[in-house]
């Protein structure tokens, strides 16, 4: 069901990654994203894949949770992979060819890499940010990192607050969506069959009450926040003080080394035909 979407969900814990300063994690996530896009040959992807697995192990987030979080993006991954298989034109003979479609070894390699890229990107950033960082500390981190922008009158605090509240309400709204869906289903609404247009139409009676209640929630929340003396960042202190510790520097160093290693690896020329040989061996075409 929808509540299985764990994207943007915090799992409290005490692992090394949980203990990192949120600012460190934002910086690491940025480095990680750069690394994912820098990687462009199988060896570099192997390195990325291994580092992601290590990251998962260190964070002590269960594989089940990770698999669940991947579920909603499987379609995107498969879609990109298929596109890449068919759209890539390689050197040499195609491995398979029918009608106007040709599959080259380069295409398969690319498809695997693109799929890995999306997968690693989502899993890596989720682990670094949303799974191991409470939205409030994430907000604190962002606010602190962006605070120089306050000088040019950007509402950094307001922005950070909005973001953290959005994150806070994801589970609440998911729960509510499910409730409304069940209510509609019990009265005969059908969300799962029919043409795409029909299904989109079936969502309208779901979205309208959801929007109405969200606005009501927003108003109540704003009142409750005002009652708790909220008035922006004016004279506001924090329960959790942000401090870079040894662990933070260690992680940053590791990530920088990883990035440098990746950049070195991609300069190594790579022969995709070797993949073709593996393929040939596998399918006894030698």
């Amino acid at each position, binding site marked *: 069901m929808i509540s299985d979407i764990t994207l943007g969900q915090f799992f409290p814990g005490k692992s090394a990654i949980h203990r990192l300063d949120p600012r460190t994690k934002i910086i690491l996530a940025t480095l990680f994203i750069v690394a994912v896009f820098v990687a462009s040959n199988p060896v570099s992807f192997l390195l990325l894949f291994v580092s992601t697995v290590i990251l998962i192990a260190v964070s002590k987030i269960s594989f089940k949770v990770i698999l669940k979080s991947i579920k909603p993006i499987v379609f995107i991954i498969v879609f990109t992979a298929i596109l890449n298989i068919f759209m890539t034109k390689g050197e040499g003979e195609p491995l398979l060819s029918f009608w106007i479609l040709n599959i080259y070894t380069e295409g398969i390699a690319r498809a695997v890499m693109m799929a890995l890229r999306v997968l690693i990107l989502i899993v890596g950033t989720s682990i670094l940010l949303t799974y191991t960082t*409470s939205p409030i500390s994430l907000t604190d981190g962002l606010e602190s990192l962006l605070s120089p922008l306050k000088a040019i009158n950007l509402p950094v605090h307001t922005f950070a607050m909005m973001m953290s509240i959005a*994150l806070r309400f994801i589970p609440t709204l998911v729960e509510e969506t499910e409730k409304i869906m069940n209510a509609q289903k019990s009265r005969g609404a059908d969300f799962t069959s029919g043409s795409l247009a029909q299904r989109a139409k079936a969502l309208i009676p779901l979205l309208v009450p959801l929007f109405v209640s969200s606005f009501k*929630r927003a108003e109540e929340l704003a009142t*409750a*926040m005002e*009652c*708790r003396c909220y*008035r922006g960042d004016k004279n506001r202190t924090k329960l959790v003080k942000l401090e870079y510790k040894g662990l933070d520097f260690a992680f940053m160093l590791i990530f920088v080394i990883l990035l440098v290693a990746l950049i070195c690896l991609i300069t190594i020329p790579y022969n995709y035909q070797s993949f073709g040989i593996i393929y040939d061996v596998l399918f006894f075409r030698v």
Partner: protein
Amino acid sequence: MKDYIIRTENLGFTYDDGDDAASEIPALSGVSINIERGEYVAILGHNGSGKSTFAKLLNMILTPSVGKIYIDGTDITAEEFSEDDVFDIRRKIGMVFQNPDNQLVATVVEEDVAFGPENLGLEREEIRRRVDSSLAVVGMTEYARHAPHKLSGGQKQRVAIAGIIAMRPNVIIFDESTAMLDPQGRHEVVDIMEKLNKEEGITVLNITHYMEEAARADRVIVINDGKIALDGTPRQVFKNVEKLRAMGLEAPQGNELILELKKAGLDIKGDSLTEAECIETLYKFLS
């Protein structure tokens, strides 16, 4: 001279629904109430009676159309009231709302409790102390690192209360805070109200439509059609069964039972405000 924490004089409020002048029926009119420091007051009324409006006026969420409000001796309806003054009033008067989900800001219980003290600009150590002690008062210490959306309704509401206690207010207004809870959660919350009043000396205003809850307060004020209809101890107020019924309210069941029996010609004497008292009275009558 008594020590009034809340004093209103001829308070009135009309919701401004735009251009339709004819529909402007005042939500509150001529409300004069004195509430002493340390009182435990229940405010009763059916839906739309104006009881929630009254609470929102005290906390400056709404501004009265007419009348005066004094909080701790300060006239909060005065013209020269600045934003900082509003801040001070809200620090003195905490408010717990109906839907616990729409009050919790953070995704970790203790961070949510810290939200108020953080807004007050307190030192880190002081925030820590207040968060810990507030969670202890509502019995949620072991959930400090939990995610609020995984708690039960009653537990969420206790966290919300802790968030208010952490601001050390003089008064806490519970605006139908038990309406969305199951009986278990309701008990938990009402027990905390009593504890806050008796042990921490906080003035408690419980706005509710549950008679059983109101019966536990020291004083009951009934608001009907924006006016004060009844004001007194629960015993005095719940004697007016007919009057309450006319306002769409029911007296506590035990109370009603005894009165009906009396009406039927039985000569029963004794109190019947709570369930226990009712049983006692019936027992005495029968033996």
